[in-house]
């Protein structure tokens, strides 16, 4: 038990609670247990520790891996039985009988613990599955405890008819001090504890405000540690020059903050492969675009204009087409109604709306300078835009009047229109 406490810092209370709940090996315990808490709060870790550390009879299944009930049942049965080879099990009845047979063959008096991780997936399957598993102890008549682990609170699992409530246990998130303790515990082998603690404290002071997920923090701490250590290894600074160390690490931390939560391929591998860093420098991430790099998508000339006209058609109300695209349209009268409409210029917030093909082609012909004869080649470019998922096709009526929606972002389209020397902003209603 002391071993368990030493290797999992900041989770002592939970370990104690679980050990108390399980009791001696032959003791009966709650019929079903539900553990919930944020990701990275140590639920699976602690559970594993208690079950393996105390040498309890248990099986762990992950409900994401076992996406059908057959897989779920066979995984459990195969883990428990002594025979090699696959066990087929189609329904709950067979599962209960096989489970009873296997456990009785083993002749152990101990409680069997079955752990279902990510159990929120069980809700989507057969509606009878989850209630049956909650009652597994009663159905089999064995000394059994079904443990369900998830991120969501138990109230999300209620469905139509009543189900028996399990004993609920919450794993609270780590506080700032606890995080320091855990991260220091996970440090690489040779480093000095005090030094690492200082470093973790610095990182947390910057990042704790933004987010608290243990996994992300651990990743950040690991990749930036080499930069932190660099001046000491080189001999330029000593461990006491705290101010200079901070100044050295600060730009790295700031750039990490920009790339927060985005595990780009370059993180952590910068020192190893020089040619990789060169190509990655070409990736301009500081703008934070959702673009999949317009350098990688080369469109033919007319396709670009087709895309631009589809964007305009999606984000402009159709009543404004006259004003933008007809020559000599005249000035629009400022009526009271149009004044009110101007206040709500937020088509970009609402999202793209659908437009018929005719409208897009009309806009297309008016923005392209030269005369373009309508040909099959032109229309096939529209289909290729759809298959690139830059346009989305909607509706049932495909032959007569197909409807489309444009799915690209404003940044993307401005970049594209720059390449053809077209000022798309001038034609958008929201920016007039």
């Amino acid at each position, binding site marked *: 038990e002391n071993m368990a406490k030493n290797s999992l810092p900041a989770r002592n209370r939970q370990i104690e609670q679980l050990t108390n709940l399980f*009791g001696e090996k032959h003791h009966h315990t709650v*019929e079903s247990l539900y553990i919930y*808490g944020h990701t990275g*709060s140590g639920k699976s870790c602690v559970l594993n520790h208690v079950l393996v550390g105390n040498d309890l009879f248990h099986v762990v299944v992950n409900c994401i891996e076992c996406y059908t009930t057959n897989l779920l049942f066979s995984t459990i049965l195969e883990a428990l039985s002594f025979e090699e080879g696959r066990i087929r099990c189609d329904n709950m*009845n067979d599962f209960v009988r096989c489970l009873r047979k296997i456990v009785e063959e083993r002749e152990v008096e101990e409680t069997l613990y079955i752990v279902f991780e990510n159990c929120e997936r069980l809700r989507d399957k057969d509606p009878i599955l989850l209630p049956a598993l909650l009652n597994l102890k009663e159905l089999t008549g064995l000394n059994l405890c079904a443990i369900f682990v998830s*991120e969501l609170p138990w109230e999300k699992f209620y469905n139509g008819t009543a189900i028996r409530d399990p004993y609920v246990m*919450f794993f609270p998130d780590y506080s700032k001090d606890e995080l320091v303790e855990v991260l220091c515990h996970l440090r690489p082998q040779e480093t000095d504890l005090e030094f690492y603690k200082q470093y973790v404290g610095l990182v947390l002071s910057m990042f704790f405000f933004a987010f608290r997920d243990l996994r992300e923090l651990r990743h950040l701490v690991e990749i930036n540690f080499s930069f932190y250590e660099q001046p000491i290894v080189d001999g330029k600074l000593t461990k006491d020059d705290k101010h200079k160390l901070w100044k050295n690490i600060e730009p790295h931390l700031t750039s990490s903050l*920009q790339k*927060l939560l985005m595990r780009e391929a370059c993180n952590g591998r910068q020192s190893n492969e020089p040619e990789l860093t060169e190509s990655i420098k070409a990736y301009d991430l500081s703008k934070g675009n959702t673009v999949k790099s317009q350098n990688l998508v080369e469109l033919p000339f007319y396709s670009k204009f087709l895309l631009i006209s589809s964007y305009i058609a999606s984000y402009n109300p159709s009543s404004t087409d006259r004003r933008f695209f007809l020559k000599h349209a005249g000035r629009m009268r400022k009526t009271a109604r149009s004044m009110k409409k101007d206040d709500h210029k937020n088509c970009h917030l609402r999202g793209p709306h659908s437009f018929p093909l005719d409208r897009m082609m009309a806009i297309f012909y008016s923005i392209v300078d030269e005369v373009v004869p309508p040909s099959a080649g032109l229309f096939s470019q529209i289909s290729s835009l759809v298959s690139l998922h830059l346009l*989305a096709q909607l509706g049932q009526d495909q032959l007569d009047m197909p409807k489309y929606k444009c799915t690209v972002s404003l940044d993307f389209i401005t970049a594209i229109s720059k390449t053809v020397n077209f000022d798309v902003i001038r034609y958008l209603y929201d920016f007039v």
Partner: protein
Amino acid sequence: MNQVLLDVQSVLRNRLFGNETKCRPDIEKFQQDLKDLITRSVEYGESNSLLVIGSKGSGKTTLLRTTVDLLQKKLSKTLIIVRLNGYMQTDDRIALAEITRQLHLENTLGDKVFGSFSETLQFLLEALRGGSSHSSQPILFILEEFDLFTQHKNQTLLYNLFDLAMAGLTPLVVVGLTCRLDVIELMEKRVKSRFSHRQLYICNQWTAENYLQAFSDMLLLDAGFCKTTKHKSFLERWNSNVVELSNNASVQDILKRQFSISKEMPSLQCLLVQPICKLNVNHQFITAADIADSARNVFSDPKANILHGVSVLELCLIIAMNHLTNIYAGESFNFHMVYNEFLKFTQKKLHILQKHNKPVVLKAFEHLMELELIKPKETTLSLASKLLKEYQPTILLLEEQQLKEAVYRYPGCPTELQQWLESSTV
């Protein structure tokens, strides 16, 4: 000393988690009716059907089990029991196989059951009709989760069972247990007409005093516990501690609060799990603090717990969504609208929150969706909405009151956020 405590734990754990049935005072009065019914069927060869209806945890299964156990010893003929459960036998075919297996009829060899569904049904019906009310052994069919059996195709199993019960050949008692009060409506007309309409409602008519009494009954150890002198002296101390605990005002308050939420036994058992499991050599008696601790766990709001652990960025987004829901009077919003609100707020208070760029905010938004604090309005996703996930209409699943409390309890919450929440416009 350790041994004494281990024994105490064993006894109490058996009461809470095991099959110990001494402590179910709520169901004793229903035992008589059930006993009469089954006895009549066995002694006089009558066939009957009965439905036992009660909410989850009200003791239906326990009732049946204790009654059957009592009767097994007293009856002249042996009663054959067939136990079916709606959770396990999800189909009539499986149910039929299970019945033939439990009855050990000739066409089963070990565990396998031969023949197709209709053959097996035919065989079973012949076997059961072939008996007479005096010479054959009575059979008791127990159908748990009865309402699930009504969802099978054509309700064939139910129809045949009730039909046989009415036919008056082999003495048969069909007892169905269910938690649905409208179970009669679920049966088809022909099945309903064959059912005897005998219903036993298990409803708990306790008052708060009964509840408190049940609490102390659950914990008091009786004379059967005294194996050695050490046990005996401990027993006296233990029992006096339990009496003291039951008279403690704070414990009574907690019990009354739990009673006002749910009268059933499982709610009482839930409160006692933690204190009982905590007993060891260093902590020999249950204290009022233990009960209070356990109550705190049981009464805690799970959504508030989850909100305690979200990051500051996610909290900002939730507050922004709350404002949008208030402004647009409950209509859905999408990610871009939320991002817009967020930008408006951060532009005013730049020094507090670092500038996060769009992909980071989108990631936080998606995390909130995983935690199910927000939910997309339409559950079926077309291809267009998958491509445009930033424009998908979403709704917030939190009340303003919950949000206010969560922000108030949030560790290290910047005051600007609290002010933003309380202001009605950004």
